[in-house]
């Protein structure tokens, strides 16, 4: 299943689907970093609102994505982690340390616009 990546000005927005396999996540990791390079993006928003399960592999991949994008000089914001998904992550001992998170897409965009002083 392909993850759509949308270009919005200086930012990229990747919207995760519910049923992402490990292979999909790996593909997305490469795809996102390549697009950040191609579009000289300042930041990436990863919207996980639809994700039903965030297991150890998914959260590790998200951390790796954020790390790779930081090495490119851009920033990652994870948005839309559902309350029950957050609860399950905490129980599993999974963290997204060092990765910015926001409530939803709107909050994520507001955070980045403020950070990069972009006025719409």
């Amino acid at each position, binding site marked *: 299943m392909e993850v759509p990546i949308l270009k919005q000005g200086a930012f990229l927005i990747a919207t995760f689907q519910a049923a992402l396999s490990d292979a999909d996540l790996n593909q997305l990791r490469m795809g996102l970093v390549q697009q950040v390079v191609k579009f000289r993006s300042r930041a990436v928003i990863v919207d996980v609102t639809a994700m039903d399960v965030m297991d150890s592999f998914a959260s590790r991949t998200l951390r790796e994505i954020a790390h790779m994008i930081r090495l490119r000089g851009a920033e990652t914001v994870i948005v839309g982690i559902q309350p029950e998904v957050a609860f399950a992550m905490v129980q*599993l001992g999974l963290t997204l340390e060092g990765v910015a998170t926001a409530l939803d897409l709107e909050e994520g965009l507001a955070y980045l616009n403020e950070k990069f002083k972009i006025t719409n």
Partner: protein
Amino acid sequence: MSVGEIRVEINSDQDIVVARQKGRVLAGELGFSAGDATLIATAISELARNIVSYAQTGEIKLKGIHGSSRVGILVIASDDGPGIIDIRQALRDGFSTSGSLGLGLPGVRRLMDEFEISSQPGKGTMVAVKKWRQ
């Protein structure tokens, strides 16, 4: 109507997704809340992932439990893989032999209400977990 047993063969990462989705559907049918269904699906995902990572192939069985006073779900993950030499160590947080975050077994135990594991080196591993409806 009683809900029968569901078996999902685990051979690839795609099967992890299938197993957890079937688990979520069954949890819903058994009357679990959406929040609990997420916890159950996450536990299934970790158990299926262990099969793919350590044993390559195995099976996840899902079953509704209809007790006299309560309803629950039973998840059994089994494989004929290399087995776990030191189960106590595998149940400790942060322990891993595959360079991942660990087996996720301590986490699975926290997500579910009951947890049983048996493993024989060279023969395979069986993890059975239960969660009761609130």
